[in-house]
């Protein structure tokens, strides 16, 4: 049960003995002068890259063993921009693992790898494997990791590094190595490890998966040593057993107290953000809301509650008891509740795992009954306790309350349609028109919307399944939507779902190499650009500041924030990477036919892009 590094040590010893001191000097001189020419991609390669040796009879390649561990965890996909210091994993996945479970996906930026894994996990409910160079790759990946951290998404990373400084034999390897690579992202990962042996790696790999999948979900990282993973290990090295962790639940006493408050309330309100980790989360909230006839405000970091349910909505200002379920930012809600003497209950895992550097914990919320536990896992108990307390009299009151909420929601839906009609024929295309042209052609399909920037679908589409909406980026930066959409479409592929994305242009340009990944791996996805030709939020901010300061000129206010002159031809850009595309389209009457053409291509199993030029929002 001991991993073998003897063969690689022998190789290094022989290499050093034959080369001698003169050879060492020559090697370094070569590396210094030729280094740029040997560099490939982000990660590059190095003169000190290890050479694997054939395993002895009682040995096997370490990276084959790693693939067995990945398979034991049920990992379907590996997403990575290649790097020499985890090349053994690529080789083993393909030639030992048969490139299935995991299947290797070629990404063009490590941030894209992570964002793809986020989109995949939001649909499939489990992590993909992300491999990255621990130094130069991890720095690219950091933004994606931050998105996963803020969004409570499980991402499972293996990071290649040359651990032993004695094995860093050239300048490239030195600048491509770190003593503690994960320190870069430790403030935004749940756990990391830097194991030495393959026994230690196996424990770390399984532990990292379990921690990532224990609510609150989050990213984890394990460092893989460049030399150890291409060495050989004992053939008997055992894969550790893995069992999926049960989610932590709120204490029964606190849940009973919450049930009492909710049943006694005149106007209870439920606020959810991301409580539905699984499809069961939606059904549970429907059951609770219907039992109480309470309105639900779904802030839609996930698909938590059906958009057309009669109880979808509610008046926060009238609520005397508020129940927040993994609702994220509730500081203002709790403050407002306090001001009107309402009680505020929260069920959340947020305080089970939190770090202090980044602000994703938000301003302190004054909550009357904070229940620490996973909301989805706690809901069955809460529902049971609520049902125990509901009398016939209360049920009559509840029904009257529910009828009023339903009527208010019908009115809100009609209002939304009237607002959508404003600018219906505008050129460029209104985002409401774009949304409804898309909805018109997918509504009878098994569809999945995997972007969350335009909010018209939330107001007007009929969403009731967990995969029909997956929210926005956790870190609210740009560069998420395109790769995350592709990762989500990948997860939807085996289910035969029609995946659609409404893609902001600024976000698209951060990592558009992800399109090539979609084309190369035949990931079916319909991308409809929301091309407003600007970093629009930033334009509004810059314009506002100039006008408040009363300086500059109308012509100069867009400097630095517009994406014009030249306009980007997104269709040609997509076509250059093998993605069928058309546009730009700015006449709303042309959009429906384009979407129809796109769906035909997507149904054949390929991505398609429509460059729709739109109103700013």
């Amino acid at each position, binding site marked *: 049960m001991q991993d073998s590094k003897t063969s690689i040590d022998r190789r290094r010893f022989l290499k050093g003995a034959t080369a001698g001191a003169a050879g060492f000097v020559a090697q370094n001189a070569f590396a210094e002068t030729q280094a740029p020419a040997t560099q490939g991609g982000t990660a590059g390669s190095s003169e000190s890259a290890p050479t694997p040796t054939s395993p002895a009879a009682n040995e096997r390649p370490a990276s084959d063993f790693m693939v067995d561990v990945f398979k034991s965890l049920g990992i379907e996909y590996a997403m990575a921009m290649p790097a020499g210091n985890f090349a053994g994993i690529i080789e083993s996945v393909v030639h030992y693992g048969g490139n299935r479970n995991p299947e290797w996906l070629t990404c063009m930026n490590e941030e894209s790898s992570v964002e793809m894994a986020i989109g995949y996990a939001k649909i499939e409910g489990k992590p993909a494997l992300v491999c990255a160079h621990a130094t130069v790759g991890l720095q690219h990946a950091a933004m994606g990791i931050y998105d996963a951290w803020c969004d409570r998404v499980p991402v499972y990373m293996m990071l290649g590094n040359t651990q032993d400084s004695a094995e860093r034999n050239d300048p490239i390897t030195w600048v491509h190595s770190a003593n503690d690579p994960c320190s870069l992202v430790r403030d935004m990962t749940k756990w990391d490890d830097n194991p030495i042996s393959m026994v230690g790696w196996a424990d770390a790999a399984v532990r990292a998966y379990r921690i990532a999948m224990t609510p609150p979900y989050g990213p984890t990282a394990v460092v893989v040593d460049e030399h150890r993973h291409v060495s050989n290990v004992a053939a008997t090295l055992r894969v550790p057993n893995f069992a999926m962790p049960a989610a932590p639940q709120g204490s029964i006493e606190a849940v009973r107290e919450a049930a009492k408050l909710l049943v006694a309330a005149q106007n209870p309100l439920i606020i959810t953000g991301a409580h539905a980790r699984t499809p069961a989360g939606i059904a549970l909230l429907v059951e609770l809301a219907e039992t109480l006839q309470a309105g639900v405000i779904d802030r839609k970091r996930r698909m938590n509650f059906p958009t057309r349910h009669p109880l979808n909505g509610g008046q926060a200002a009238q609520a005397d008891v508020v129940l927040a379920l993994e609702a994220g930012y509730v500081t203002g809600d709790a403050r407002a509740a306090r001001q009107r003497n309402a009680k505020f209950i929260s069920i959340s895992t947020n305080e089970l795992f939190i770090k202090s550097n980044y602000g994703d914990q938000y301003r302190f919320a004054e909550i009357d009954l904070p229940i620490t536990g996973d909301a989805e896992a706690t809901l069955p108990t809460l529902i049971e306790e609520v049902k125990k307390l509901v009398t016939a009299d209360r049920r009559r009151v509840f029904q009257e309350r529910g009828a009023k909420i339903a009527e208010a929601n019908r009115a809100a839906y009609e209002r939304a349609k009237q607002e959508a009609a404003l600018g219906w024929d505008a050129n460029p295309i209104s985002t409401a028109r774009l949304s409804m042209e898309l909805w018109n052609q997918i509504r009878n399909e098994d569809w999945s919307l995997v972007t969350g920037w335009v909010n018209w679908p939330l107001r007007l589409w009929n969403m009731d399944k967990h995969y029909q909406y997956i929210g926005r980026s956790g870190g609210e930066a740009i560069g998420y939507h395109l790769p995350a959409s592709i990762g989500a479409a990948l997860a939807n592929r085996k289910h035969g779902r029609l995946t659609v994305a409404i893609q902001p242009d600024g976000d698209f340009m951060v990592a558009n190499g992800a399109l090539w990944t979609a084309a190369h791996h035949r990931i079916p996805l319909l991308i409809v650009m929301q091309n407003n030709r600007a970093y629009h939020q930033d334009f509004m901010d810059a314009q506002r500041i100039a*006008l408040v300061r009363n300086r500059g000129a109308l012509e100069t206010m867009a400097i630095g924030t517009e994406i014009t002159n030249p306009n980007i031809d997104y269709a040609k850009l997509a076509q250059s990477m093998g993605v069928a595309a058309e546009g730009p389209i700015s006449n709303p009457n042309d959009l429906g036919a384009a979407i129809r053409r796109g769906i035909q291509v997507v149904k054949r199993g390929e991505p398609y892009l429509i460059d729709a030029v739109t109103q700013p929002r």
Partner: protein
Amino acid sequence: MNRILLVIVVVILMGSGIGGFIASLRAQVPAPAGNAENGKAVFLKAKCFSCHGTVGQGGPGGRLAPKPVAFPAFRTFVRQGKVNSPATNRNWAGMPPFSTKFISDAELADIYAYLTSIPEPPATASIPLLSQP
């Protein structure tokens, strides 16, 4: 006659409050004549559309058309703005003030004429995509 006028004024004040009374007087002030075509050009050049949409349908900023607010209120809103600055509010947002350095009085009248010229949207019942379940 003066007593009758006084009674009318008192009734209006009681019914709508002083603010409402003043607003009702302002609403009677006719908007200056403007050129809708030029107004559209200025509306686009000043990038009013970035918040309000190219036909004033609204977006991050409020809806401006059809049926814009009375011209005095419109003028006040454009000239004074309503910005929540970081000093008074955590959110830097709201309508910025457009001084005459950026939009002249004549151009403001033109913009108003443009907004006034924008027709009502079609009824939702007449739009198939908005009338289906």
